[in-house]
């Protein structure tokens, strides 16, 4: 009977059942993620006060802190339901983890992306989503070291990028101030941000989670 349950045919629905478990057991996190994505889209194009009392430093985009919150919620949503159980499990759950990550990240991002045409400037909304995606990727990669770092590193990256390490250069007669943190700067290609997200998904799927 046991052997029958673990045959190739029965593993496919079981893989998808993992997604169901995560979403059913964490409804509030999923709801917060949906709310956070709505705030991300509604704040597209807006800026927040600068942490630098320096007129040369441009005001940061609102999508930076909101994107960090999105990254935290995604990392919370996809972490194992039973802490440590997956590390002790005999079965390889990489496929299930990959499906979970693709469904959560792709589903949430796709749903939010589908709403961007409703915005005044859809391109700005798409940029906010790709930025949040890159921060999710960073959180997933850092999550390999443990949940603590998976949640903390995107915030540390963005906050330290906004707080210090600015360099100024003259470009075409204009003084430009750039932060050291690559994603905090204005001109990051959307493709590169999506590549960071894809890398994060692959790493998080390939490495067994360490737990907290």
């Amino acid at each position, binding site marked *: 009977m046991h052997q029958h349950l673990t045959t190739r045919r029965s593993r496919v629905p079981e893989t998808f059942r993992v997604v169901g478990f995560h979403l059913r057991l964490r409804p509030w*996190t999923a709801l917060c993620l949906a709310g956070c994505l709505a705030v991300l889209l509604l704040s597209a194009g807006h800026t*927040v*006060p*600068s*942490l*630098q*009392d*320096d*007129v*040369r*430093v441009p005001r*940061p985009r*609102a999508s930076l*802190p909101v994107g*960090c*919150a999105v990254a*935290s*919620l995604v990392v*919370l949503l996809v972490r194992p339901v039973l802490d440590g159980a997956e590390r002790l499990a005999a079965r390889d759950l990489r496929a299930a983890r990959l499906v979970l990550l693709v469904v959560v990240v792709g589903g949430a991002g796709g749903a939010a992306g589908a709403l961007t045409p409703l915005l005044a400037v859809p391109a700005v909304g798409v940029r906010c989503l790709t930025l949040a995606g890159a921060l999710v990727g960073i959180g997933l990669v850092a999550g390999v070291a443990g*949940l*603590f770092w998976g*949640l*903390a590193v995107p*915030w*540390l990256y963005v*906050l*330290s990028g*906004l*707080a*210090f*390490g*600015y360099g100024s250069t003259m470009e075409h*007669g*204009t*003084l430009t101030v750039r932060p050291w943190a690559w994603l905090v700067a204005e001109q990051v290609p959307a493709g590169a941000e999506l590549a960071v997200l894809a890398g994060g998904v692959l790493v998080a799927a390939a490495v067994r989670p360490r737990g*907290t």
Partner: protein
Amino acid sequence: MSRGSRARYLLGTSRATLAVVPMLVAVGYAVLPSLTLWRGDWWWGFNHALQAVPVGVVLTAFVAGWDAGAPGSGHRALRDRAPVAGWRTHATLLLPPFAAAAVPYLLGVLVVAVATVTSDGVVDPTAGLVVLAHLSMFALAATVGVAAGGVVSSPYAAVAATAVLGALLFWSVPGGWSLFAFPGTAGPAVEQAAMSSRYGVTVLGLLLAAVCLTAPALPLAARRVTVAGGVAAAVGALWVSSLVVSPDLYVSSGERPTRCRTSSITVCVYPGYDRLLRPAADSLERALDVAATHGVPRANFPARYEQGGNLRSPEGVGELVVGTRSLRDRTLDADAVVQSLTTPLWCAEMFANLPPLPLLGRRDLVADWLYLIGGALPQEEFLVWHPEQQGRRPDQVAAAVRTALAEIRTCTNT
């Protein structure tokens, strides 16, 4: 549980021991590079060191939330396993995250103070208010984390506390600033850090908010409703404190330099820079004398020069530019003198998003002419930069410089 075992339990379970590492890295990054370029300027180094504060604030909230919400060692576990007075439970959870940020921060400030004193600089005691404001920020962050841990368990408490602190950090108060007033990175920026009313309001508002958040956590049976009430009271306290001082008052309270020396010109500096007064006035007067002998009387230049000029500089008041080694060498180098004589910071165009190229072009003509008559720029190179002066006699070039200075005075940018 004895005091010693409580401390061991605390350090063994707290994530604050992990948070010290990124905090030390942030403080080190903000302090150590500026030490290699040290020039004895207290505010310059101090402002650089303070850049680590936003990272520390968020890290404190995250760690405090994580610790307080931990099922095995957090708020509820401490309450159930070792029942003591509520304030002791609260302090137990509050102190490690607070110390993890405050100790590296104070260490960084101490390093800057020692480096300033050993470089023959002077530490300005008004900086104490800024330090107090930042310690209040850490206290508020730790209190928010502990309050979050009383409502939800970690890791949700950590994320909730971080989100609340992020919202407060980027909350726009009147004037478009962050509620948490942070000094800038550019130059000495002393006038930005010495706005006592701004930092006074910050300290009061943050401390009041921390107290409001602490109150519901004191009773042993802290309920979610009382914690939510504390959060609401804290946000209200912060909101009211941010409205207490109007933007106009903020701007007018920006302290201008008060240590002045008047001869044929007036030079003013901030406390701590007094020993620069005489050398700066002498250097500027020498340059003005040379300009007068070459056909541009000193009436064309500003008669008053203030350190740390900014958007609030009155019309016609020049900025006393303090060079890289001015304070240590007790002299203004040629670049600092020329910049002081030519930079029109009273013009709003200087702070626009796009550089005022026509205005800067006029400034460059005056600056290069000063280098030319001072012997620092060869005639050929001057003509390369300003080909329109080709073939003109020295008195005609001086007339062009006088015209440029008059247009700079009126901020002509066309």
